[in-house]
């Protein structure tokens, strides 16, 4: 039972974690990215179509990253060059992309809502020979797809990027004090554009984790608000990679548990809110702790 929950939780966490890592880089550079949902959705669609046409999931992943990046571009330009409000622009992007995708689906594929393409190469799952049989550890490590591995490897890499590299420090300077960054000769708009495009690419891959990694089809509701869960995750993690990843896995775990708790006598409506309730509780605790204790950096 626990093994099943862990296995499912980790797979379900991947899309959220990828988007959240993108979002936190973006946030560190000073932009709150509300458009993650849209970037995930376009990545999910591009991944499915490209993988189907090319017959290769690698091409699908590439297309997902590119599609996420392209959909992030207008958001970034509006915010950094034209001074648009990031919340309004992000929400606008979500509406725009959802509408565009609806149009694409009906115009090119003659379907509304759901796109199934056959055959489509889904992400292979990597079974680890000896570890697979070990309880708990096997469930955590074995049978995961490449994006899941990539997402978790990116957690320490993102931490390193932000704290130990020149580009990371510059990004954070843009976020914490754009005027100072500007005065020492950094181009704040350029750095922020870079961060938003990176967020787009990562969120696009998160979308691919849904369409190619989990389900093997696309639907307009495929992301189902996961972009916003990612947003909550990096807020909870205060834009730091490890706490953000913890928030993601927390949600993934309770979501997987929720599915298995149904039928246990509790009303399903109550069980279903569990993962959201946990996230809200965690967010509240985090902000409470922040007010109380000395603030750790960064």
């Amino acid at each position, binding site marked *: 039972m626990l093994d*099943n929950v862990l296995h*499912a939780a980790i797979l*379900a966490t991947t899309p959220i974690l990828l988007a959240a890592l993108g979002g936190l880089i973006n946030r560190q550079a000073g932009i709150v990215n509300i458009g993650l949902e849209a970037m995930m959705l376009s990545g999910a669609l591009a991944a499915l179509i490209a993988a189907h046409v090319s017959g290769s999931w690698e091409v699908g992943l590439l297309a997902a990253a590119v599609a996420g990046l392209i959909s992030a571009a207008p958001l970034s330009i509006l915010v950094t060059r034209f001074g648009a409000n990031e919340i309004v622009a992000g929400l606008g992007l979500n509406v725009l992309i959802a509408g565009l995708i609806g149009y694409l689906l*009906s115009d090119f594929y*003659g*379907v*509304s*809502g*759901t796109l*199934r393409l056959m055959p489509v190469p889904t992400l292979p799952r990597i079974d680890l020979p000896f570890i697979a049989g070990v309880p708990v550890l096997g469930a955590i490590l074995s049978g995961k797809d490449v994006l899941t591995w990539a997402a978790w490897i990116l957690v320490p890499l993102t931490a390193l990027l932000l704290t130990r590299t020149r580009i990371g420090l510059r990004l954070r300077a843009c976020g914490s004090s754009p005027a100072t960054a500007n005065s020492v000769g950094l181009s704040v708009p350029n750095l922020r554009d870079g961060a938003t495009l990176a967020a787009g690419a990562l969120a696009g891959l998160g979308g691919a984790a*849904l369409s190619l990694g*989990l*389900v*093997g*089809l696309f*639907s*307009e*509701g*495929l992301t*189902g608000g996961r972009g916003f869960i990612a947003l909550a995750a990096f807020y909870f993690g205060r834009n730091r990679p490890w706490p953000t990843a913890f928030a993601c896995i927390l949600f993934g775990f309770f*979501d*997987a548990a929720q*599915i*298995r708790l*149904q*039928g246990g006598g509790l*009303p*399903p*409506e109550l069980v*279903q809110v569990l993962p959201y309730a946990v996230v809200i509780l965690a967010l509240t605790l985090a902000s409470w702790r922040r007010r109380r204790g000395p603030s750790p950096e960064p």
Partner: protein
Amino acid sequence: MLKPVLIAGAAALALSATGAAFAQDPVALVIAQGGLGDQSYNDLAHQGFMAATEETGVEGRVLESRDVVAQGEQILRRAAESDFGLVVDLEYAHGEVMEAVAPDYPDTEFVVLNQVREGDNITSVLFSEHEGSYLAGALAAMVTTNTDIPGINEDANIGVIGGTRSVGIDKFLVGFVQGAREINPDVQVQVAYANTFGDPATGQQMAEAMFENGADIVYQVAGGTGLGVIQAAEAAGHYAIGVDTDQDGLAPGHVLTSMIKRVDVAVADVVEAYAGGSLEGGQVRNYSLADNGVGLSEMIHTRDLLPADYLARIDELRDGIIAGDIVVVNVIEDGYPDFFQ
């Protein structure tokens, strides 16, 4: 003036010049959310609509709207004012609005699906989904212990996933459970609700959880969410049961059967009755097993996997329901039975 006696059907149309001048007015079909191309409910209804308008020669038009749920009142009023004699509305959310609008247009006939609405010019169309689901449950209960069939374990364990927890959905679920228990009183049926009709990833995870728990057949009553259930069945080498339309081809060999609702037949019937002048408002038309309004798919991909006596048993149960020997619980009318709380 004497009204000529009209027989429903195309032949009667040519004679209807005296009795029912309104029968010449065009007919409209309001498309529900999801839109045309959904390969499901809307498309199926549209097929029946086109076939019937072609056959009867009545002019038919399709009304689509980007925001169909919120614009219910405008759509219905505009349709009635544009001289449509019959407005068939596929959108479930328009039921209440229709009740309010219909009295203002006594010369227009309205048709609403999957619910009963009051009004002298409103025809309500219902389907006996519980009966079709009963057959699906019975078949699943027979198959779930037959390990000769690939992807089946020995446990008498099956599952069903509903879109939301509501009587409209539980009508399917209760029928399914009752049918399964008819075959095997000890069968374990896992029941879960996705709380969404549009999230296949959730459907996929829920089905996987049921497979882990020993199920090998999962019935999906969850629209787009259910596509994830079918996907999970294919990936795990188990079985899903489709709903509304024939979904057997979505994952050939991994959709055991589909519980089909013949929305096309219902819509065509209504249009033909209208064209023939025999459509009387204020009535409820029910489509059940008896008139092929609901039923199981042809199972073209899975039929060969099943022993012949299974299909014979399904036919037997079907006849029993039609004859009234077997009474399937309809939660909307009868309330919840003891075995499903």
